[in-house]
């Protein structure tokens, strides 16, 4: 795997052309994000101007102030964090156990189970909003954060298990045998040897459950119907976005606030994510 393996037989002007187009594409791809942050910092007069300029000479925090002064925005932010955090931790633990079971053991129905996990990933989550709504209502979970946490744990599990398989498989069986030889119990091996070794994979896998929970818009809209104190960030964002007369400064500021945690998470696990995807795809 040489990093520039295919460059040598590309002649110079072509490589230059390729590099210029790569940079151009990068600019185009990054532009919406730049425009979002720019819009968040533009003063009110500039953002609602018919001559939009790609810079601002008078950055202001007005839009952010509006966002944070909006009813309980901090609370929404916290709610989102609680939901995403709980989903990430709980689903990672459950997925770890399940992935261990399907990779370290041979048992009846193992293949069937794996296929079921694959099929479960295809289930359109949105279609299940209707039965889940009734389920949450019957258990008195409507208008609680639990109604957001529980379905997201369930929906992120199949993919997490599927992806973690590769990470668990990569831990040599000999290590397990050695641990048992040294008298370790099964649970000791599981938590003190296997868990730390698989942990990087768990982090990479968590990105997906984090994103699905953090970005969730449908469940928040459907299950949190009357108690707005239990609402999450996407709903707060929509407060600024009224189709007829959107407060663009507010929308961009709220979007920025909502995007940054995901970006940070992504950048932190970027490397693991790429190799993790490679592993999940290859297996």
């Amino acid at each position, binding site marked *: *795997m040489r990093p*520039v*393996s295919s*460059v*040598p*037989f*590309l002649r110079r002007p072509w*490589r230059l052309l*390729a*590099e210029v187009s*790569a940079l151009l*594409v*990068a600019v185009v*791809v*990054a532009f*919406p*994000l730049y425009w*979002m942050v720019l*819009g968040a910092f533009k003063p009110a007069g500039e953002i*609602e101007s018919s001559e*939009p300029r790609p810079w601002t000479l008078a950055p202001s925090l007005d839009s952010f102030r509006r966002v944070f002064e909006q009813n309980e925005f901090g609370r929404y932010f916290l709610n989102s964090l609680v939901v995403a955090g709980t989903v990430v931790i709980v689903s990672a633990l459950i*997925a770890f*156990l*399940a992935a261990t*079971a399907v990779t370290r*053991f041979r*048992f009846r129905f193992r293949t069937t189970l794996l*296929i079921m996990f694959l099929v479960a990933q*295809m*289930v359109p989550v*949105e*279609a299940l909003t*209707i*039965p889940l709504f*009734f*389920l949450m209502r019957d258990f008195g979970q409507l208008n609680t954060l639990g109604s957001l946490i529980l379905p997201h*744990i369930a*929906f992120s*599990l*199949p993919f997490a*298990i599927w992806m973690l398989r590769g990470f668990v498989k990569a831990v*040599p069986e*000999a290590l397990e*045998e*050695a641990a048992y030889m040294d008298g370790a119990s*099964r649970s000791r091996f599981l938590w003190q040897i296997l868990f730390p070794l698989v942990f*990087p*994979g768990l982090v990479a896998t968590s990105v997906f459950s984090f994103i699905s929970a953090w*970005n969730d*818009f449908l469940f928040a809209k*459907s299950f949190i119907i009357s108690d707005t104190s239990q609402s999450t960030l996407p709903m707060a*964002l*929509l407060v600024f976005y009224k189709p007829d007369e*959107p407060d663009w400064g507010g*929308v961009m500021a709220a979007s920025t606030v*909502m995007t940054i945690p995901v*970006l940070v*998470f*992504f950048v932190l696990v970027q490397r693991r994510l*790429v190799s993790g995807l490679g592993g999940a795809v290859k297996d």
Partner: protein
Amino acid sequence: MTPGTPTGSVGADRVRLPVVRGWSRPRGGSRKISTAPRPCRRSRGRSQKAPWLYLAPALVVLGGLLVYPVYQLGLISLFQYTQAQVSGGEPTTFQGFGNYAELFSDSQFWQVLLATVVFAAGCVVSTLGVGCALAVLLTRVRAVPRLALMLAALGAWATPAITGSTVWLFLFDPDFGPVNRVLGLGDHSWTYGRLSAFFLVLLEVVWCSFPFVMVTVYAGIRAVPAEVLEAAALDGASQWRIWRSVLAPMLRPILVVVTIQSVIWDFKVFTQIYVMTNGGGIAGQNLVLNVYAYQKAFASSQYSLGSAIGVVMLVILLAVTLVYLRLLRRQGEEL
């Protein structure tokens, strides 16, 4: 214990290194070790129960929050279930396939189904095209442009669907957006026309989903031995020919995965349509199945019709999954 099996800490030391370094290393390092005869662990008395113990939490959660709702979805779609039954306390009546009959005789349903298929196909083709082209481009450039493109793509990937939707709307805003200024379109509204609204949503969907394809395919290309490509180039193959006759066949497993994933994601697009066309566009012109089901259920309280649409989606996606499993099996993948 058989003599060939590494024992104790020696074995642990020997195998530790690749594990800590990562899982992207070529498989086989661990396999060499485990070719030694399997020790007695498999036949321990408890080991038949242990996997189920580990699986129990996952099975409980999935059973309660995935399998049971799917069952309920099917059930609701067979009953008369509207506001009167939900809050009015009226008894639910069994409809058989009445809801489906009603759905299938509704011309709007067929229109939405067609729109969904065409829209998803457009998204998949564009996403794969852009993703593969950029993955190839990435292999042709040096570190700095590659890093720039990677970072930009990761940014687009990480952007939540809802913020991506609002930002793209803002970019194409008739009054304050930069796109109309640059293109000199005046106050042309992109969300007014059916096709242009779908096109705008497609742009956003491609923007946030091509990075997955690009990164995965790029990783796949990097794993192709350089000698193979050099040999093809020496034989005088053109770039296109190399892609078509060498890279594409070698990347087939990866291409299958990203294609199927894209089909599934793009068939289920919800947030983008809901936010960007304000719940399905003017007079529902931009509805896709997912949003249609939601609107039927929660906006007009026809829960059973909404569920029937959900079942139709489920069946279509299951068919896609079956194709996927077929393809995987033909490649001789072991699950």
